C-alpha cells in the first residue's frame, strides 16, 4: 500500500512539513523536523529509483483520475535519478546548515528558513516527478518563490543579498512567464497538458507556427531558470550573497532541476523528429555552451570573492551540460545526465567548504583564506579534493563527466569540441589552483584567529568528498542509470 503511494508521498511529506515548521518557534525544532523529512524523502527516492531500474517506469494517478485529464506522476530512470540527487543533497546540506544558519541569519528568521527550505525542496522534487506540464510550472513557481526568500535571508550578512534576490525575482519571473506562455500555446494546439499525451499529439505538428513559437518560449523560459549563458546574470549574485547553506543547496540542485525540465520538454515532449530541435542544438546550444564554458571560466579567474568565483564556475559547468545535450545522442545525453549528479557532488562540497570558511572568517575572499591550509587543514584539504574533481582529474567524478563528454564529441565527429572541452577545463586548473596557492603558500596574518570548522560541517563536507571519489572510482552505477535515462529520452531501445 505504502509502496504504491510512494510517488505522491515524495511530494506530500515535505509539502505538509513546510507549514508545520513555520509553527516551530525554535530553530532547533524546525531543524530536527527538516532533517527527518528530508531523510524520509531521500529514502523514498532511493526506493523509487530501485523500483524503476528493476521494473521500468511507474505511472501514478493523483486521486485515481485517469491520465490525460487527471494529473499523472510518471517516474522513469531519468527523473528517479534526479529525485535522488535532489533529496540526497537536501539531506546532506542540513547538518551543515545548522551552524551556518545560526551564524548567518537573524534568530527570529531561523525557523522560517527551514520552512522556505522545505518548500523549495518540495518544489524542486515536484518539478521533476510530475508528468503534467502545467503541474511542472506550478512546482517551478513554488521552488522559485521560496528561493527568492532564501536568497534574501542573506541580508543579515550583506545587504546586497536583497538586490540579488530582487533581480533574481525579476529574471526568474520572466523565465516562468515565458515558460507558462509556451505551455499555454501547446495546450491551445493539442488540448492536453499530460506530457506523454502531448508527445503523442504534437507528432505531425512539426511545421505548425504556434507550436514553433511555443517551443521558443519554453526553451527561453527554462533557459533562464537553468542560467544558460547569456541568461545567467542573476546567478553569480544570488549565489554569492545568499546564506552559505542556501548556496550549497541551490548550486547542487536548482539548476539541475531546470536542466531536467529542459531535457524532458525537448526530448520527451517535442522529440527528435522536430527539425527545429536539431537546429536549436547545433546553432543555439552548442555556441552558447561554449561561450559559457570559456567566458564564465575566464571571469571566474579574476574574482576576489571565492563564492562568486565558484558561482561563475557553475555557469561554465552548466555549459558542459548544455553541450552534452546539444549532441542529441545517447553518449551526449549520458554525459549531461551523469554530470547533473557529479556536478551536484563537487559543487555541493566546494560551496560547503566556503560556508565553513565564512563561519570562521566572516567571508571567503582571497584575503581571508590566506594561510588557511594550516589553520583549517581538513576544510582546505576538502577544497583541494573538490577542486581536483572540478578540474576533472582521474579517480574523481569530474573525470567521469569529462570522459563521457569527450567521447560524445569524438563520436559525433566534432573533434574541435573535444579540444575546447579540455581547454576550458584547463581554465578550471587556473582558478582552483589560485585558491590552493593562497591557502597553502601564503602566511596567515599574525592576528589570525582562524580555527578548524566544527565537526557538524566537516562530516557533511567529507561525506560529499568521499562520494566525489567513490563515484569517480566506481562509476558503474551512475553511468548505467544515466545511460538508461538517455536512451529513454531518445526513445532508443535498451
Amino acid at each position, binding site marked *: 500500500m505504502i509502496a504504491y503511494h510512494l510517488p505522491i508521498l515524495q511530494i506530500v511529506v515535505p509539502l505538509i512539513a513546510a507549514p508545520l515548521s513555520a509553527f516551530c518557534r525554535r530553530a532547533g525544532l524546525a531543524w530536527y523536523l527538516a532533517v527527518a523529512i528530508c531523510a524520509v524523502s531521500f529514502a523514498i527516492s532511493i526506493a523509487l529509483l530501485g523500483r524503476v531500474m528493476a521494473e521500468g517506469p511507474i505511472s501514478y494517478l493523483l486521486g485515481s483520475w485517469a491520465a490525460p485529464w487527471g494529473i499523472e506522476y510518471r517516474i522513469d530512470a531519468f527523473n528517479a535519478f534526479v529525485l535522488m540527487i535532489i533529496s540526497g543533497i537536501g539531506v546532506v546540506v542540513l547538518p551543515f546548515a545548522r551552524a551556518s544558519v545560526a551564524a548567518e541569519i537573524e534568530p527570529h528568521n531561523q525557523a522560517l528558513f527551514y520552512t522556505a527550505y522545505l518548500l523549495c525542496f518540495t518544489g524542486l522534487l515536484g518539478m521533476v516527478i510530475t508528468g503534467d506540464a502545467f503541474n511542472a510550472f506550478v512546482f517551478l513557481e513554488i521552488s522559485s518563490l521560496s528561493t527568492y526568500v532564501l536568497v534574501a535571508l542573506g541580508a543579515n550578512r550583506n545587504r546586497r543579498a536583497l538586490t540579488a534576490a530582487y533581480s533574481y525575482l525579476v529574471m526568474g519571473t520572466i523565465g516562468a512567464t515565458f515558460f507558462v506562455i509556451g505551455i499555454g500555446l501547446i495546450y491551445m494546439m493539442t488540448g492536453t497538458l499530460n506530457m506523454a499525451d502531448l508527445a503523442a499529439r504534437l507528432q505531425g505538428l512539426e511545421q505548425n507556427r504556434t507550436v514553433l513559437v511555443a517551443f521558443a518560449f519554453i526553451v527561453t523560459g527554462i533557459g533562464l531558470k537553468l542560467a544558460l549563458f547569456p541568461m545567467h546574470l542573476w546567478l553569480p549574485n544570488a549565489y554569492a550573497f545568499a546564506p552559505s547553506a542556501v548556496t550549497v543547496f541551490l548550486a547542487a540542485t536548482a539548476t539541475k532541476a531546470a536542466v531536467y525540465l529542459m531535457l524532458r520538454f525537448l526530448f520527451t515532449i517535442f522529440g527528435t523528429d522536430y527539425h527545429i530541435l536539431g537546429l536549436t542544438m547545433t546553432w543555439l546550444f552548442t555556441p552558447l555552451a561554449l561561450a559559457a564554458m570559456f567566458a564564465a571560466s575566464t571571469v571566474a579567474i579574476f574574482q576576489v570573492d571565492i563564492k562568486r568565483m565558484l558561482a561563475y564556475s557553475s555557469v561554465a559547468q552548466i555549459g558542459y551540460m548544455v553541450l552534452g545535450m546539444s549532441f542529441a545522442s545517447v553518449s551526449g545525453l549520458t554525459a549531461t545526465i551523469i554530470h547533473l549528479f557529479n556536478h551536484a557532488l563537487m559543487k555541493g562540497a566546494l560551496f560547503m567548504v566556503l560556508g565553513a570558511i565564512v563561519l570562521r572568517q566572516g567571508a571567503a575572499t582571497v584575503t581571508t583564506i590566506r594561510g588557511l591550509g594550516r589553520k583549517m587543514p581538513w576544510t582546505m584539504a576538502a577544497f583541494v579534493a573538490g577542486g581536483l574533481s572540478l578540474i*576533472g582529474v582521474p579517480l574523481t567524478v569530474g573525470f567521469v563527466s569529462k570522459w563521457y563528454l569527450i567521447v560524445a564529441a569524438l563520436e559525433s565527429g566534432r573533434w574541435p569540441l573535444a579540444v575546447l572541452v579540455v581547454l576550458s577545463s584547463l581554465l578550471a586548473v587556473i582558478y582552483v589552483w589560485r585558491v590552493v596557492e593562497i591557502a597553502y603558500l601564503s602566511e596567515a596574518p599574525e592576528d589570525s584567529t582562524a580555527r578548524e570548522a566544527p565537526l557538524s560541517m566537516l562530516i557533511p563536507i567529507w561525506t560529499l568528498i568521499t562520494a566525489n571519489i567513490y563515484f569517480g572510482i566506481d562509476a558503474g552505477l551512475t553511468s*548505467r542509470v544515466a545511460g538508461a535515462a538517455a536512451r529513454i529520452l531518445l526513445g532508443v531501445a535498451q
Partner: protein
Amino acid sequence: MTDAGLLLLTILLPLFAALLIALVGRRPNLRESVTLATAVLLFAVVVALSLRFRAGPIPAATLQEVMPGLVIALKIEPLGMMFALIASGLWIVNSIYSIGYMRANKEKNQTRFYICFAIAIMSALGVAFAANMFTLFVFYEILSVSTYPLVTHKETPEARASGRTYLGLLLGTSIGLMMIAIIWTWVATGTLDFTRGGILDGRVSATLAPLLLALYMFGIGKAALMPVHRWLPAAMVAPTPVSALLHAVAVVKAGVFTVMKVIVYIFGVDFLAKTGAATWLMWLAAFSLLAASLVALGKDNLKARLAYSTVSQLSYVTLGAALATSMGIIGGSMQIAMHAMGKITLFFCAGAIYTATHKTEISQMDGLGRAMPFTYGAFLIGALSIIGLPPMGGSWSKWYLIMGAADAGQLIVIGVLMLSSLLNVAYLLPIVGRGFFAGSDAAPAHGAVHAVGADVAAGSRLRAIKEAPLFCVLPPCLTAAGCIALFFHADSLFRLLEPMVRP
C-alpha cells in the same frame, strides 16, 4: 602469496606507508624507519615478482572497473618490470640519502615530505605495472599532483612560481592533449589494453596517425620533450632528494616509459615503421637532445645544468622509440635504466656538495674535489656513465641506440648521437676537473658560506670543508658502483627486454 596479491602489494605497501608516516609524524626516527622498512619490503616484493615473471607470464590483476569497459588493472611486462625494479631499488638508496640531507639541512615539514614521497613512489609503480592506458593515465596524474607539494616544499615565492610552471605544464599537457589522445584511441578501437604489436593498425588512418602520435608525445609532459620541458628545470627548486629520485628517476622516467609504452603497445613498431608516422618525432627528439645539451653547457647552477642534461638524456629514449626498430626500442629502454643510475648519482653528489658547503654554482666549486674525494669520485663515475664510456652502464644504451639508428638507415641520427656525447663531455667533465685541479688551498673560494665554522679565516676555508654526513655520501657511492655493475650485467637486462620486440 598469489601473483595477483604480490602485484597489488606493490601499490598498497607505499600507500600504507604514507598513512603510517602520517600517524607517527611526530617521532622522526620511527617515521624514517617506516620509510626505510617499506622501501626494503617493496623492493623485495618487486624482486620476487621479477623472479616469478622470469619463470612464466603473470596474469593481470583487476582492481576496479571505473566505467563500463574501463578498468584499473595491473599486469607485468618486460619494460614495466625493469622500471619497477629501478624505481623501488633506488627508493631504498634515496631514502637513506633523504634522511641525511633533510636532517643536515634542517628542512621544515619533513612528515609531509615523506608522505608525498611514498605516494609518488606508489604512482610510479602503478605507472610501471599498468595493464592499460587508462590505468597508466590515472597513476600518471596522481604522480603529478603528489609531487607538487614536494616541488613547493620550501614555500618561498620562487618555489611558488616554479610550482605553477610544474603543475601547469604537467596537468595542462596531460589533460589538454593526452586525455584527448586516449579517448580518441578508445573511440577508434574500443580498447585501451597494452597489446603486443599495437592496437591502432587498421583503425586509425596513416594520415591521422602522426597527429594522434603528436597528441600523445606532447601530452606526456613528463617526457620533457622540447618545447614542454620547462617544468623540469623549474622543479629543481625542490630539495635535492626530490630532484634525485623523482626528477631524475621516477617522474621523468614515468614520462619516457609512457612514451615507450605508447609506441610499442598502442601504435606498434610495425605500424609506425609502415606509415612513417614517427619520422617527425625522431627529428624533434634529435633536436631536443642537442639543444638541451647546449643549454646545459651555459648553466652555472649545478642542479640546473643537471636538469637540462636530463632533458637531453630523456630525448635519447624518445629518439630510440621514434626510430621504430627493435634495436632502437631496446636501446631506448635500456637508457631508462642506465640514465637513472647515472643521473641519481650526479644529483646525490650535488646535494652532498650543497650539504657540506652550501654552494650551488659550479664556478664556486673550485678545488672541492680534494676536500670531498668520495663525492667527486662518485660524480666522475656517474658522469662517465651519462657520457656513455665503458666500463659504465651508459655505454650499452648508446651502443644499442646507434645500432637502432643504423638499422633504420638514419646516418644523421648516428652523427647526432656522437655529437651529443661530445657535448656531454663538455658540460660534465669540467665540473670534476675544477673540483680536483682548479684553485689552490690558499685561494679563498668565492662567496663561500659553509655550514661549519663561518668565522674561520678565509685562507683556510677550503681546509675546513669535509665530506657531507655519511648518509649523504654513501648513497652516491652505492649508485656509482651500480653504474659499473650495470655495464657487466647489461646482458640480463637485454634478456629481460628482448621479448618486447620479439615478433
